[in-house]
């Protein structure tokens, strides 16, 4: 069951097309990665989910119903450009923002107390935001974002500005929220964290969606049938491979040799059986493409074809 769905969204600004017929579907209780180069249209799409802007055409659904203003109370949003009132006290400000999300002042107070204790920042309550460091303010903002226990949480580059320790605390908290049933839309350029956290992704480039699906499916779909073999060879000679196997590269690594072999129409067992008579195999594994590579490959492909069309 999807918690959020966007259908054929198009948005045009005065000078350019920000989103071109984009559809995405976010499964309930999943972490959904919204990926794409800068200026691709991610922020525009996020601003539609948070109802800051509206699409020119297309429909947005929340729990199967058309998205309505009251839904903002069930959605939490951490924008990439963080911001708080600099001259306002941390506690008062958190209470205010929580109340704007529909919490009563009393509820907000109780919940804030819990989070301030959990993050060990109780003594910041009376401080003004301008007295906090950037990382401290980020922490406050993260708490404010999740305080009203949104069903759908949108995090735009949530780890930027955090040191590794705090980034890890935030990551733990994201996983914790997921285990409690929260759905998270996660926008980032950090592909390692996409592989680590996301269940599904959508890749947007030049206003269009060019790829979506489960991370595991995408990665296996982009497998090139390349295997990585590390072996010990006595005579140091090159591997001799029969036709149909393609030796891409060989590297020396700590006395071992590591070869990348593309096996066209064959399967892995056939590769093994050709190798076993000649070398001592240490390890043998299939190369699964990194999200980073897929990202670069897809975006470059599209940009190249656009250039062709334009030329």
């Amino acid at each position: 069951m999807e918690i959020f769905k966007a259908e054929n969204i198009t948005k045009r600004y005065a000078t350019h097309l920000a989103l071109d017929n984009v559809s995405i579907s976010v499964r309930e209780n999943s972490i959904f990665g919204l990926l794409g180069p800068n200026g691709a249209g991610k922020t525009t799409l996020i601003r539609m989910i948070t109802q800051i802007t509206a699409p020119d055409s297309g429909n947005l659904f929340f729990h199967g119903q058309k998205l309505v203003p009251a839904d903002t109370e069930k959605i939490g949003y951490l924008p990439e450009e963080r911001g708080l009132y600099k001259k306002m006290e941390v506690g008062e400000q958190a209470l205010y923002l929580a109340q704007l999300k529909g919490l009563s002042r009393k509820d907000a107070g109780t919940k804030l107390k819990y989070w301030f204790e959990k993050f060990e920042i109780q003594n910041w309550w009376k401080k003004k935001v301008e007295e906090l460091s950037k990382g401290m303010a980020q922490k406050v903002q993260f708490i404010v974002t999740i305080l009203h226990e949104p069903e759908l949480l949108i995090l735009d580059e949530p780890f930027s500005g955090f040191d590794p320790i705090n980034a890890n605390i935030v990551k733990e908290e994201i996983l914790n929220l997921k285990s409690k049933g929260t759905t998270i839309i996660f926008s980032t350029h950090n592909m390692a964290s996409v592989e680590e956290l996301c269940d599904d992704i959508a890749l947007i480039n030049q206003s269009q969606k060019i790829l979506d699906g489960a991370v595991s499916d995408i990665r296996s779909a982009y497998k090139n049938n390349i295997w990585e073999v590390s072996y010990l060879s006595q005579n140091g000679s090159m591997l001799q491979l029969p036709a149909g196997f393609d030796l891409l590269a060989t590297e020396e690594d700590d006395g071992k040799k590591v070869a990348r072999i593309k096996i066209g129409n064959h399967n892995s067992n056939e590769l093994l059986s050709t190798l076993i008579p000649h070398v001592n195999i240490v390890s043998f594994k299939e190369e699964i493409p990194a999200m980073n590579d897929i990202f670069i490959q897809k975006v470059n492909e599209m940009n190249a074809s656009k250039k062709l069309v334009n030329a």
Partner: protein
Amino acid sequence: MHKIALIIKREYLTRVKKKSFIIMTILGPLLMGALFVVPIWMATQEDEKTDVLVVDESLLFKNSFTDKDNLKFHIVENMSIKEAEKQLDEEFYSAVLYIPQNIINSNGAEIIFKKQPGFNTMMFIEDAIEKELESMKLAEAGIDKKTLAAAKTDVKLRKSKYESGVKESKNTELSMMVGMLGGVLIYFFIFLYGAQVMRGVIEEKSSRIVEVIMSSVKPFQLMMGKIIGIAMVGLTQFLLWIILTTTIVSAAKGLLGVEKNSLPAPVPMEQTLNGQKSPMQSNLQANQVDGDDMGEIWKSVDKINFPLLIGVFIFYFIGGYLLYGALFAAVGAAVDNEADTQQFMLPITIPLVLSFVMAQFVMNNPEGPMAFWLSIIPFTSPIIMMVRLPFGIPYPYTDLWISMALLVIGFIATTWFAAKIYRTGILMYGKKVTYKELWKWIRYH
């Protein structure tokens, strides 16, 4: 609605709690109080001991100068002016008055000083010489002083307004003051608090909190919440000012033992009205007629329809602010920082300053076509109608109703217009916005 209330509350409380608000609230009435008290205090303190050495070569002024309070005259007849000037070095005399022999023809005397004596002292001396010369000339022409005094006439024109069978007396001077005061208050309120709206919007935009808030409320709610919240700050401040000023002024009056009649304010008014040259003379006259005049003023104070005036004042005070407040908010949203506001401030400032400048022409002809149009057009009506109102609006107040209705429509229109700019501008960064761009935002649905 609940969210607008939250926004209003935040805007109000954060501002009212600020140190600058508290300081301004206390300092405002002190300044206002000083405006009333200092001139009175100065007037009572002015005369320091002044000894004037009079070198009278004409020998005509032996008995003309009467000593007054701290002002003493020492008349010498056989001292040369050079010698007299040297006396100044001995610090006993603070001035030397030199009356040349031919004064009766030249009408000129000279006062020599190290430190200039006060204005009143100078006037007193001039007056004394003038009187002496006048009476000499009168005697020469054979006119009796009493005859002249009897011939002197002072005509007072009483103004009455005729309206559907009822005659109503008017005091124009008072109307002018009341209207101008209302207009000035509205003018300052719009500028002071409109600018605060603009700064508040810029603050939200530059601190980037606006995107967080936009994910909870509509831009229009945020804009209106801010405008209303700041209006309430302004009203609070004005109210506190009025209370504190009244307290300080009345306390100061009591302390200085100044009575209402001796306030210096009516004196210059009398002068201009009667068109008389010498302040001393008119001062004397003013003192005589003051009782009468004050009675007259109080009578016409009763005639001014205060409930109507105050009601209308509050309407234009708030209406004018709301009309402009939305525009100030739009300017704030269109720019990234305060330095860029200049180009967009001009169209807002012009009608305000214009109405302020035009106010005096309107006072000259409160029922002319300019007064009519400026008091109807929503951008100028808040100030101009306040100036016009005390002169009376013809029954059944058609002009007033049209003007008020147009102000409400104008407010809705500017808010609608501003909301469009606000909505787009508030999330737009790093772009130098032009009028053309703004126009695009307005047409953008």
